[in-house]
C-alpha cells in the first residue's frame, strides 16, 4: 500500500542530507551518491551499484548533463524533456518515492535550484534468462517459463496477447519494504466486480514485506484454512494467457517465477496446460486418466484397509487369501504398515525435492532397492502394501498442480485414519463431510466447483475435453459476449452438402 512520504526539502544541501541518511549511503558500500557540477549548479546522482546499469548512467545522464548549458526556463522540465535520452524519466517529490525507485534499480538525479528529483529508468540488474518451466512440463505447447524479473514476465504475456485490451496496472504491497506487482486483465472480458475486488484486497493487505507469491496468495484467499488453494499459480505464460482470456485477473510479482490467477476453481487446477494443445481425443483420454488417478490416490489406501481389516466379505476369496498370506509374516498390523509406508513415501518425495541433482541417482537406489525390495524380503512390509502405496502415489502425481497433489495426500491420510477406525462406517461419513466442506469453498465469491456445481453455462470441456470448435462461451467467469460464429467457418453448412 502506498503511503504519503516525507517531502523533499527545497534546499539542495538539506535534500542531499536527507537522501544520504534515509538511504544509509554511509553504511552500505553499494549505495552510491555521485556528486557532479553541471550547468553551473551542484548536483548528485543516487543509485545502487549493481541494480542500475553504469553504462546507461554515464552515457545518457552524466554526459548530456555535463555538456549542457544552463537553460533560461524551468530547468527540471528542460532536463527531462530535452536533455536525457532515456525511455522513462519521471518526477518525484517525496523521499519515500525516490528511495523506492532507487532500490528498484532506477537512478535519482537532484540538482540545486531544481525542486524534487528526477527518476531515470536505468535498471540493469542481473536476472535469469527465460528458460523452460521447472514444474509444469508439457509434451505439446510452448516451453517458455516465467522468471524472477517483473518486466520480463509482463513482456512474455504481452507477446502472446497482443492487444491494447490487455491492461497492466502497477501496484505495490508491503508497508515497510514495498514489493511491485502487476495486475493484468482483459478489460473487455473480465467482470468489473472481479477487478475491483482484487484491487481492494491488494490495497488492504497490511504486512511489512510480502516475501513470496505464496504469501500473497494466502493473504488474499477467501478460505485460508481450506486444504485446496483458491488461486491458480502457474510458471507458464501460455497458461496465464488462457486464464486472462477466460475472464480471470493475473497478478505478476517481482522476484516470483510464477503468476497468480484469480478467481480460480477446482477445474482450473484440474486442467493441464497441454489439454487444449493436443487433439481432443487425446485430451479427453488424459483427463479421464487423471480423474481415475486422483480417485485412486484419494480412496485406494483407505478402501484397501477397510476391506482387509473390517469388511473381508467385500473381497474375493482369492484376493483375501493373498492378503492374509502376505501379511502373516509381517510383525506390524496392516494399519500400522500402511501408515508407515505412506509416511516413508512422503519422506522420499520431500527428500527428492531437496536433494542436489548429483545425488538424485543415489536417492533412487536408496528408496527403490533398500526401502522397497529389502524391506519386503525381510518381511517388514507386505508387497501388497507397497503396490497400494505406489499406485496411490502415482495417482497423486497425475494432478497437474503441486498444491492439488499435496491436498490429495493429506485427504488420503485422513481417510486412511478414518478407515482404520471403523472401515467404511467411519471412512464414508468422513468423505461426506470433506465433500460438504468443499462445496462451501469460493474464490473471490466464485463457487469453487462451478460450472458443474452449481451448473453454469460453460463450454463442454470441463470434465472431459471435447472438440475445441464446440466452444461457444469464454466460461463462467467472463462477461457474456456473443459468439463470432462457427469456428470452422470454412466448412459448408450442412444443408449445402
Amino acid at each position, binding site marked *: 500500500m502506498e503511503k504519503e512520504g516525507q517531502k523533499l526539502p527545497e534546499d539542495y544541501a538539506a535534500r542531499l542530507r536527507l537522501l544520504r541518511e534515509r538511504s544509509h549511503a554511509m553504511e552500505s558500500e553499494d549505495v552510491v551518491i555521485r556528486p557532479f557540477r553541471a550547468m553551473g549548479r551542484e548536483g548528485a546522482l543516487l543509485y545502487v551499484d549493481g541494480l542500475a546499469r553504469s553504462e546507461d548512467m554515464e552515457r545518457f545522464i552524466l554526459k548530456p548533463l555535463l555538456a549542457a548549458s544552463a537553460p533560461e526556463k524551468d530547468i527540471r522540465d528542460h532536463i527531462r524533456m530535452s536533455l536525457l535520452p532515456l525511455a522513462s524519466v519521471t518526477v518525484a517529490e517525496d523521499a519515500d518515492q525516490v528511495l523506492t525507485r532507487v532500490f528498484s534499480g532506477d537512478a535519482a538525479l537532484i540538482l540545486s535550484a531544481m525542486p524534487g528529483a528526477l527518476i531515470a529508468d536505468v535498471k540493469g540488474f542481473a536476472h535469469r534468462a527465460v528458460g523452460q518451466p521447472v514444474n509444469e512440463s508439457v509434451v505439446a505447447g510452448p516451453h517458455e517459463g516465467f522468471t524472477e524479473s517483473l518486466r520480463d514476465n509482463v513482456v512474455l504475456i504481452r507477446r502472446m496477447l497482443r492487444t491494447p485490451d490487455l491492461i497492466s496496472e502497477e501496484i505495490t504491497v508491503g508497508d515497510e519494504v514495498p514489493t511491485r506487482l502487476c495486475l493484468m486483465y482483459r478489460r473487455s472480458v473480465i467482470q468489473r466486480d472481479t477487478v475491483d475486488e482484487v484491487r481492494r484486497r491488494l490495497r488492504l493487505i497490511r504486512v511489512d514485506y510480502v516475501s513470496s507469491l505464496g504469501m500473497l496468495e494466502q493473504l488474499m484467499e*477467501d478460505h485460508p484454512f481450506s486444504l485446496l488453494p483458491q488461486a491458480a499459480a502457474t510458471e507458464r505464460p501460455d497458461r496465464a494467457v488462457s486464464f486472462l482470456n477466460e475472464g480471470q485477473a493475473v497478478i505478476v510479482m517481482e522476484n516470483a517465477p510464477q503468476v497468480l490467477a484469480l478467481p480460480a476453481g477446482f477445474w482450473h487446477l484440474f486442467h493441464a496446460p497441454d489439454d487444449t494443445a493436443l487433439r481432443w481425443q487425446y485430451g479427453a483420454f488424459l483427463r479421464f486418466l487423471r480423474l481415475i488417478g486422483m480417485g485412486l490416490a484419494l480412496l485406494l489406501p483407505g478402501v484397501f484397509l477397510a476391506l482387509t481389516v473390517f469388511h473381508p466379505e467385500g473381497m474375493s476369496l482369492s484376493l483375501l487369501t493373498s492378503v492374509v498370506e502376505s501379511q502373516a509374516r509381517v510383525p506390524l498390523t496392516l494399519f500400522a504398515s500402511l501408515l508407515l509406508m505412506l509416511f516413508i513415501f512422503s519422506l522420499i518425495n520431500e527428500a527428492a525435492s531437496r536433494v542436489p541433482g548429483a545425488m538424485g541417482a543415489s536417492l533412487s537406489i536408496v528408496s527403490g532397492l533398500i526401502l522397497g525390495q529389502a524391506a519386503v524380503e525381510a518381511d517388514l512390509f507386505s508387497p501388497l502394501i507397497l503396490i497400494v502405496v505406489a499406485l496411490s502415489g502415482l495417482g497423486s502425481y497425475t494432478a497437474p498442480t503441486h498444491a492439488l497433489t499435496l491436498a490429495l495426500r493429506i485427504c488420503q491420510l485422513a481417510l486412511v485414519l478414518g478407515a482404520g477406525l471403523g472401515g467404511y462406517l467411519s471412512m464414508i461419513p468422513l468423505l461426506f463431510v470433506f465433500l*460438504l466442506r468443499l462445496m462451501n469453498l469460493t474464490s473471490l465469491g466464485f463457487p469453487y466447483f462451478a460450472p458443474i456445481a452449481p451448473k453454469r453455462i460453460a463450454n463442454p470441456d470441463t470434465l472431459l475435453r471435447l472438440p475445441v470448435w464446440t466452444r461457444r462461451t469464454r466460461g463462467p467467469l467472463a462477461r457474456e459476449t456473443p459468439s463470432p460464429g462457427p469456428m470452422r467457418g470454412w466448412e459448408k453448412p450442412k444443408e449445402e452438402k
Partner: protein
Amino acid sequence: MTLPVPSYRQAALARDTWALSALNLYAQVTVGLALYVYGAVSTPGYLSVLLAMPLLSGLLLLTRWAVQKRKPPRTLLLLPCAACLLDAQSALFSLCALMADVMPDISLPAAALGCALLLSLGLYRLSPHALPRLSRLLMFLIVPMLLFCGICAAGHGKAGHFFPLFGYGPLSILKGTAWILGAAATACCPLFTMDPPPVKVLLIPPLLSLLGGAATAFAAAYLMPVYALSAAHTVGWRLLLFTHMTPSVPCWSVQVCAEMLLLLLSLTVSVDRAVRLLGVSLGKQAAGSRAAALLLLLLVPAAAAGIPDVQEALIRILPLRLLLYLIPLFPAAKRRPES
C-alpha cells in the same frame, strides 16, 4: 464476502435446491420401502404406483398455489420443521441399521454419536449454497453406483414375485399412501422459505425421483429371491437387498457406500431444513450451526436404541408427516397474497 450475488447464481440455487429435494426424496422412498414394503410380499399391486403420480402432482401444484406470495403464520412453520426432523430421524435410524448389518459388533450409540458429531462439523458455518451443490455432485456418484448394483443383481433373482407397494387391506394402503405423500411433501419444504421456482423445475425433479423409487421397488419385487419372501429381515438387510441377491463382490462395497452417502445426505439436508424453518419461525434468517448440532444430538438416542422398537415406532409415526406439512397450508391459503 463483499461481492454481490449475481442473479444467475440465485437461479442455480433454486434449481439445485430442487435437485437436492429430489435426492432426499429418493432416500426417503428407499427407507420407506425398507420399512413398509419388503415385509409384505404377495400378489401384484404395482399399478397403485402409477395412480399415485397424479395425486402427487396435484399436491405440489396445490402447495405452489397456496404458498406463493402467501406465507403461513411463522409459528406454524414449526410443524413442517417437525416433519423434517422425522425425516432426519428415519435417515439416522436407517444408517444405524445399515451399519449394524455391515458390522454386527459395532456399538450403535457410538456410531450414531460419531455421525452426529461429524455432521455437526460439516454443517458449521455452511453457506446455504453448499448442500444444493453437493446434491449435484453426489448425483453423478450415487445414481451410477446404484445402477451398477441393479445391473449386478439383474438375472440373479427369481422373476415373478410382485407385491403391492402399499401393502394390502384399506388401512395398510392408507398408511402406505400417507408415507409416500408425506415424503413428497417434505421435499417441498423449501417452498416455505424461498420463492417458488418455475413449475417445470418444481415438478420434474421430484417426479423423476419418485419414478426412480418406484422403479427400484418394481425391480426389487421382480428380482427378489424366493427365500426372502418369508424371512423376517432387518431394515439394514433390506437396504442392501441387491448385495444379497448377487455374488458380485464389488457390488457389496458399491451399494454400502452408495446407501451410506444417500442416507447421510438425507440426514444432513433434513436437519438443515429443520434448522432453517426453526429460524424463520423464530423470526431469524437462520437458527445457526449450534441449533443444527443440538438437533443432530437429539436424534441420536432414538437411532441408537433397539432397532425393532424404533422401527415399529417409525412405521406408526411417519405417515403423520403429511398432516404436519398440510396444516400450515390452510391458513396460508386464507391470507391475501403479499405484493
